[in-house]
């Protein structure tokens, strides 16, 4: 081993209790950071997936302005042929056309205002998870059947079951009175209260008849193979549509601005907390290294008098800090990984969490997502701040005067 390295290593263990306490501060923060960051990214991923898989998809083709107003007359004309064309041109099956209208649903006993989607039964299951969440009965099958699927809470509130009739009242595209009697084919349970209480789906063909849509709809939903490829797909679709001003393609972050912003808001408060933790560790290191430099003033004076340059002493102090920081980084990452792995297997939950995260379409138990980034991002920042904290003690050495230093005790 190199002499300087050996010197630094020995200096480090001069006060082993002090060194271990400083490393302890690093390990504590690192463990917490690894766990929190993994948990956070696990939650964000779920939040995006769960929200997008319900209705919005990765992008939608709509009439301009529809996203904000959802007005009946902001239509996509000939929506089914458009969806079919996109499917063949993009060679993708995860594309489906929809219509949306507001209506009053009346059973024998009750009436509620609900949002009604007209969907393509064959393709809807490829862009939305609702068809897979049917709890009773079955999902829609024929494009022109007079049937409907509704959420569990709506079914309970309307006091109806599979096979019962439901009257739908609303207004058609031209403003005329729209009415239909449909049979409940199935009941879905998405677990999201708002959706289970307020949403129904009927076949697009039936929807277009009932609401006098004349072949039009309100959206074409597209799902990319995964979120990372969504942007490329969106650009492609946008170029395909560029000839047509009456249509725009909206990305998921525009369709669901809440999700992205909730993540941003949560991230900024989380990063504030992480920042504080890191600063506190840095203070700990600063204190330790300052002490270790001050108590060696006498010794440093001697070696300087023997001809050692202050720059080399400064590098020695930095080397000591690097060693200490590295031990902290390693132990912290290991402890963090073990801690996090336990939760990736068993999931993480606390009392009241289910109620809270349901707002973000999350289940009551979340699993942290451990990746190389989440494992090392936190510890690396702590490591760098550790080094930064040692700069001041190291620089102090430059002002050291050998003779004076030797006199101090």
């Amino acid at each position, binding site marked *: 081993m190199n002499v300087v390295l050996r010197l630094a290593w020995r200096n480090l263990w001069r*006060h082993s*209790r*002090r060194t271990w*306490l*400083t490393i*302890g*501060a690093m390990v*504590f923060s690192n463990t917490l950071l690894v766990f929190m960051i993994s948990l956070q990214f696990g939650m964000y991923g779920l939040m995006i997936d769960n929200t997008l898989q319900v209705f919005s998809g990765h992008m939608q083709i709509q009439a301009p302005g529809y996203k904000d*107003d*959802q*007005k*009946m*007359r902001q239509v996509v004309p000939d929506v089914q042929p458009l969806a079919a064309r996109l499917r063949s041109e993009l060679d993708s099956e995860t594309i489906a056309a929809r219509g949306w209208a*507001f209506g*009053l649903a*009346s*059973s*024998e*006993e*009750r*009436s*509620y*205002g*609900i*949002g009604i989607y007209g969907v393509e039964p064959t393709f809807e299951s490829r862009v939305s998870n609702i068809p897979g969440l049917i709890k009773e009965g079955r999902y829609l099958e024929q494009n022109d059947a007079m049937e409907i699927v509704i959420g569990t809470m709506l079914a*309970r*509130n309307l006091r109806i079951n599979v096979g019962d009739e439901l009257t739908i*009242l*609303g*207004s058609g595209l031209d*403003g005329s009175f729209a009415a239909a009697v449909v049979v409940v084919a199935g009941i879905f349970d998405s677990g999201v209260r708002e959706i289970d209480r307020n949403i129904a789906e009927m076949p697009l063909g039936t929807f277009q008849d009932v609401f006098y849509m004349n072949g039009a709809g309100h959206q074409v939903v597209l799902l990319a193979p995964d979120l990372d490829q969504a942007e490329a797909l969106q650009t492609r679709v946008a170029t395909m549509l560029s000839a047509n001003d009456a249509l725009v393609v909206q990305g998921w972050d525009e369709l669901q*601005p*809440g*999700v992205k*912003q*909730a993540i*941003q*808001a949560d991230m900024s408060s989380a990063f*504030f*907390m992480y920042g*504080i*933790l890191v*600063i*506190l*560790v840095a*203070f*700990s290191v600063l*204190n*330790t290294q*300052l*002490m270790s430099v*001050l*108590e060696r003033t006498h010794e440093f004076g001697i070696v300087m008098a023997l001809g050692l340059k202050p720059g080399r002493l400064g590098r020695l102090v930095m080397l000591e800090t690097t060693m200490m920081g590295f031990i902290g980084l390693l132990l912290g990452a290991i402890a963090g990984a073990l801690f996090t792995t336990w939760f990736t297997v068993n999931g993480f939950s*606390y009392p*009241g969490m289910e*109620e*809270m995260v*349901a*707002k*973000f379409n999350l289940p009551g138990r979340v699993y942290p997502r451990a990746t190389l980034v989440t494992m090392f991002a936190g510890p690396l920042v702590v490591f760098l701040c550790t080094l930064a904290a040692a700069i001041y003690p190291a620089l102090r050495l430059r002002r050291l005067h050998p003779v004076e230093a030797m006199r101090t005790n």
Partner: protein
Amino acid sequence: MRMFVVLSRLAWRYLWRNHRRTIVMLSAIAVGAWAMIFMTALTRGMVDQMIVDGISVIPGHVQIHDPDYLDDPSINNRVAYSDAELAARFEDLDRVAWAARVRVPAVVTSERESRGVTLLGIDPEAERSFSFIDYDAVDGRFLEGPDDNGIVLGAKLADTLETRVGKRVVVMSQDPENEIADRGFRVVGLFHAEMEATEESLAFVGKRTAQKMLRIGDSVTEVAFVGDDYRDVEPLYSKVVERVDDAVQVSRWTEVDTYLGTMMGMMDGFMLIWVIVIFLALSFGLVNTLVMAVFERIREIGLMLALGMKPAMILGQIIIESMMLLSVGLLIGDVLAWATIKPLEGGIDISIVAKGMEMFGASSVLYPNLDVDDVILANVVVLVLGFFASLSPAWRASRYEPVEAITKV
């Protein structure tokens, strides 16, 4: 007592013997304390605002309903008491405002669009103590009495419906026999709310007008009570319970809106965890400082012991030193927190993530709330835990063998 003064003076002087170390540690404690209080004030402010906004949708601190209403909010589940009976039961309640309302799901239709809303039939006079909305910031006018024939909509809803003050809309709901109950209303006012969801989902009409339209005589679906403090509704709750029988169910607001109820409980838990995490990060540095402080004066401690000072005095002196360090650091941190929060009390604009905050149920302006109880809790937790953390180094210091300690180099 005199001993305590002597020990304190000794501890204070020791503290400043190595002023660099003390200053670094003080900065760390101050930053930690600042972060604890600052973060708590922000979160507390957010949750308070959420609850205030949330209660304005419920509103009231305690409500009575038909026992089935919360599960099935339908016109068929009405409060069993007549107007006269309600007055007889509740008129002797002191410092409590109460209001009876009709709350039903309904559909509002303009020439262009229809949307689902929560229709509220209210007596504006009785509602004055409740804060659904800001009654003074209504475009047009608010309702003038229970017989008012107009309707007040949210500005956002009016936008979607493409209607405005002076125009007519049709409101549809159901009567107890499940016949469609509908009626035309003239829009007399538009209200504005912090949250878009409120503006989209509430519509106000006169209570008696609503009762006539729904054909329910003079019955209502809920009676709401507002007392002194939403944090402590138990006194009000028990007063209301005393005055009713089994025909109705009394609920606290935390039960009507379980999300907000959970949030309030979680807030306190979060705050404690945050304080403890920061303390733990600090504790490594604190113990380190004490260990060093003891180490560098082993000989003096030995001398004092040899001269007859009791080990308990040494223990006391180190602990006093630690408490002084913590108190001064906390004091600086408290002042710092106060100084940074005060200028922000007018509200922090975070509308850049407004949609995200709305997912949490929070508004886009954050009003930090510096709660004295929170500040006390943070300080006390740090002092108490700090006391325990300093026990070990203090104990070690008091256990030295005088002769060994004096001869230690």
